[in-house]
């Protein structure tokens, strides 16, 4: 027994006298509390400096279990004020056991200032109730630019495991979509810390060093929220997208994806119910159609087919084909939108009147892969690099692609479909906008940009946008002039399919597209009688290059019907607003 006690004493000697110093250090570091100082997140501003995403103090009601002497009283007073059911509050307080007893456990986030003062007034004699201030994101313009700005959310375990070493902690807010996600490292800022010594009773004795946090940088967008809101208001259709760019710089002037959602729903956290309803909506309001919506460009693609023909010099613009309203190809019949046919027609008129047969013939002459190459030169088939997360590339079908994915050779019928922008070909609205901009700016394919500037908290400009030329489309000036004139004719001429975009005093160039969503039109039915999901998408691309400030835009109305009837008027209203002229309305038939 003496021996055993001696062993214990020896161990005690070892711990307290020999290793004592080391343990003293460890206990001292135990009582140094490292407090993290979180930076406030950078704001997002529009081109005119209006704040689109800001921070405002949000209050979080919490409890400190070690100080909580009367949980029932806390539940009785606080539950009715913040509107949490008492049972749920009791559960949350019970769960607070999972954290150390001197730490705050959050009970309800986003408590209003009113509730805060009520709680303050009624819990003066209750211990263990805390109200902590934490910034929350506010969006003064609510739904405007929702897909571009994106949402914040609590960091997920996977994100945490990836980014814990760069200073993220559980419960942190992190950009989940849009610019908030893409520019997270800039917006977030850098954590600071403060080392605080506490005595045996837990009182703070003083600071032992402090590094202030670096506030997040502000993003300034290329978009003016006034134009953006106008476009959002004008786009009354259920689903679709509008992208307007400055063709000389690639700056996005407006970017709309309908339907949208109110960003403030996500701040500080979206409720389960709201998330479910947004997520299960068949129209998918959370999806940014401008960069992720895949549409056949339809006849708007005839710009590309024409470019291919002009660049290849395979035809002269005065080459004619005869449209009888139908083309027989190996037993299959391909129709023109005009069942009566356009007769003998040349390229310019074929563009203006959007004759399908002309382009079928032209396409067959060129071959599918030549058209496909032209399409990729216009930036289709690859993400544009706008700087928003998860942009889709779209698809340009080629004979190699067909063989690879379908194990079948390319067929002439597919060339016919491709020549009018149908079939496998899909592109995003932002790709179509940049394609249009390339015609407007003299053949330059630019990288679109939504962020004009990144401004650090100290005023330093971290990033300033300059136009990025991806490449030049191989068209000479004569080809471009021809194409531009044909597109001007689409709007200005009486038989032009885009005449609903005519504005007195402004030369608008455009091209309509009515893209079929079902394989082949069985018979020409009135679009209003068709079921919604079988109606074609209405597409209109347009640009104005004759004014000091230019604009190129695309309007896509999902299942809207005819591009000329539905999409062109929207483009007209946007252009009128952009140039500040009154909207002349649809021209009389």
């Amino acid at each position, binding site marked *: 027994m003496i021996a055993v006690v001696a062993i214990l004493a020896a161990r005690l000697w070892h*711990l307290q006298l020999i290793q004592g110093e080391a343990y003293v250090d460890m206990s001292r570091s*135990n009582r140094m509390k490292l407090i993290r100082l979180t930076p406030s997140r950078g704001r997002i501003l529009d081109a005119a400096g209006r704040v689109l995403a800001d921070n405002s103090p949000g209050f979080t009601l919490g409890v400190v279990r070690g100080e909580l002497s009367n949980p029932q009283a806390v539940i009785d007073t606080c539950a009715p004020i913040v509107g949490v059911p008492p049972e749920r509050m009791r559960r949350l307080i019970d769960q607070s056991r999972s954290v150390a007893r001197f730490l705050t456990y959050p009970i309800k986030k986003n408590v209003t200032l009113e509730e805060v003062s009520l709680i303050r007034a009624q819990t003066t004699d209750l211990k263990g109730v805390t109200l902590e201030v934490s910034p929350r994101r506010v969006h003064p313009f609510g739904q405007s630019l929702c897909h571009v700005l994106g949402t914040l959310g609590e960091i997920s375990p996977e994100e945490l495991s990836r980014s814990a070493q760069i200073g993220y902690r559980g419960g942190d807010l992190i950009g989940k979509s849009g610019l908030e996600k893409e520019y997270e490292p800039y917006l977030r800022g850098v954590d600071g810390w403060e080392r605080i010594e506490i005595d045996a009773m837990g009182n703070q004795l003083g600071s032992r060093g402090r590094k202030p946090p670096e506030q997040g940088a502000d993003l300034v967008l290329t978009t003016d929220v006034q134009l953006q809101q106008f476009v959002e208001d004008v786009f009354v259709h259920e689903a679709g997208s509008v992208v307007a760019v400055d063709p000389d710089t690639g700056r996005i002037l407006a970017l709309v994806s309908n339907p949208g959602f109110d960003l403030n729903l996500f701040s500080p956290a979206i409720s389960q119910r709201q998330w479910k309803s947004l997520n299960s909506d068949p129209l998918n309001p959370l999806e940014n159609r401008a960069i992720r919506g895949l549409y056949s460009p339809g006849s708007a693609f005839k710009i590309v087919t024409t470019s291919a023909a002009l660049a290849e010099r395979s035809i002269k613009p005065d080459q004619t084909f005869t449209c009888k309203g139908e083309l027989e190809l190996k037993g299959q019949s391909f129709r023109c939108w005009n069942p009566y046919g356009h007769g003998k027609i040349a390229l310019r008129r074929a563009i203006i009147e959007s004759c399908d047969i002309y382009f079928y013939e032209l396409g067959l002459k060129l071959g599918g892969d030549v058209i496909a190459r032209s399409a990729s030169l216009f930036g289709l088939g690859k993400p544009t690099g706008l700087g928003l997360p998860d942009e889709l590339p779209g698809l340009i079908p080629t004979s190699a692609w067909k063989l690879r994915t379908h194990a079948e050779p390319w067929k002439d019928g597919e060339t016919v479909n491709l020549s009018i922008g149908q079939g496998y070909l899909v592109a995003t609205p932002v790709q179509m906008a940049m394609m249009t901009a390339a015609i407007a700016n003299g053949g330059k394919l630019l990288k679109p940009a939504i962020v004009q500037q990144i401004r650090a908290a100290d005023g330093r400009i971290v990033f300033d946008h300059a136009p990025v030329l991806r490449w030049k489309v191989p068209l000479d000036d004569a080809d471009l002039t021809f194409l531009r004139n044909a597109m001007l004719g689409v709007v200005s001429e009486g038989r032009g399919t885009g005449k609903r975009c005519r504005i007195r005093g402004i030369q608008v160039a455009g091209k309509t597209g009515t893209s079929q969503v079902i394989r082949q039109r069985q018979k020409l039915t009135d679009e209003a009688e068709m079921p919604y999901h079988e109606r074609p998408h209405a597409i209109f691309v347009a640009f104005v290059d004759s004014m000091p400030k230019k604009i190129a835009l695309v309007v896509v109305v999902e299942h809207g019907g005819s591009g000329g009837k539905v999409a062109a008027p929207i483009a007209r209203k946007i252009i009128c607003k952009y140039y500040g002229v009154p909207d002349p309305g649809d021209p009389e038939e």
Partner: protein
Amino acid sequence: MDRLTIPLHRSERHLVPLVGFEWSMILISLTLAGIGLVAVFSATVASGQPGRSLVLRQVTWCSMGLVLMAASLLFDYDVLRRWAGWLYVAVVGALIAAWVVGKIAGGSQRWLEIGFMRFQPSEFAKLALVVILARYFADRGGRGNPEPRELILPILLTALPVGLVLVQPDLGTAGVMLLISLSMIAFAGVGRRALWWGAAVTVGIGVLIFLVGDHLMMEYQKKRLMTFLNPGDDPLGAGYHILQSQIAIGSGGVLGKGFLQGTQNQLMFLPVKHTDFVFSILAEEWGFIGCIAVLGLYLALFLCGLGVVGKARDRFGALTAFGCTVMLFWHVTVNVGMVMGLLPVVGVPLSFLSYGGSSLLAAFLAVAIMVNISMRRFSY
């Protein structure tokens, strides 16, 4: 304490208790209980009102322990020998009751509730085990080395409460019971052959427990056993207890940080500190000096206990006194070894110091029994 060897006259019998009274044991146990109160106060002061009520409760248990001790001195300890069987049946019944009540309440539990009191039958089971083993070996008499088969009954007598405690599940108490029983068997003068048998059976049971351990041991117990091997592995997980405890002890140094000044203690870095880890608080706030003093008190108590063994009037008394001494001894060894990282964290209270009524009462009773044996050594 004079050693009177002159037989007393019948009329002088009433004087006997005072002659052989072990004042020192009483004094040591009261001192230890007092130190325990101070430590429990320090451990719980930071949690405010609920902490204060814990100290008050411990004071109540202390007073009850004193009354119980005084009362138990009034009877000759021979009562224990006569009632050993019934005592054993009673605690086993209580253990089963705790198990059944626990099952009904959902989950298992260690305590039984009688009126306003809650007690852990397992703490008293140790005493009952000591008494019944003492009686068994006393009845056998001192003749030679017993046959291995003579050990079957003591092993069964031990296995029953140990099994019942294991299902609670309380690995620490079960282990201490096993240690008590083995010590007593060894002390009862069994031969080498029997000891071998005993060792073989123990190893067999150990292997069995190890094999079915997956089912018997709770997740936390497995974790604790694993992290005992390397506490640094998982400093915030299962190794947390032991690491924080070692920091507390180590940072106490020679003189300690002073009463209520232990940062590990007051800032709640130490878990279950007023029960199983009370020694860490003592070490942090009173340092090496304080710890050595407490260990010294314990050693003195053990030596007094062994003294009682030597001077008991009969074999039952000697065996019982030995059992009580080893009970306290193993508690102190396992607990102090555990908080210092020498033994796995199994959850054994430190007799007299840890918060907890049953443990305190059992410790006082053990001392009372030894005092009883000592003071009646001349009354035949």
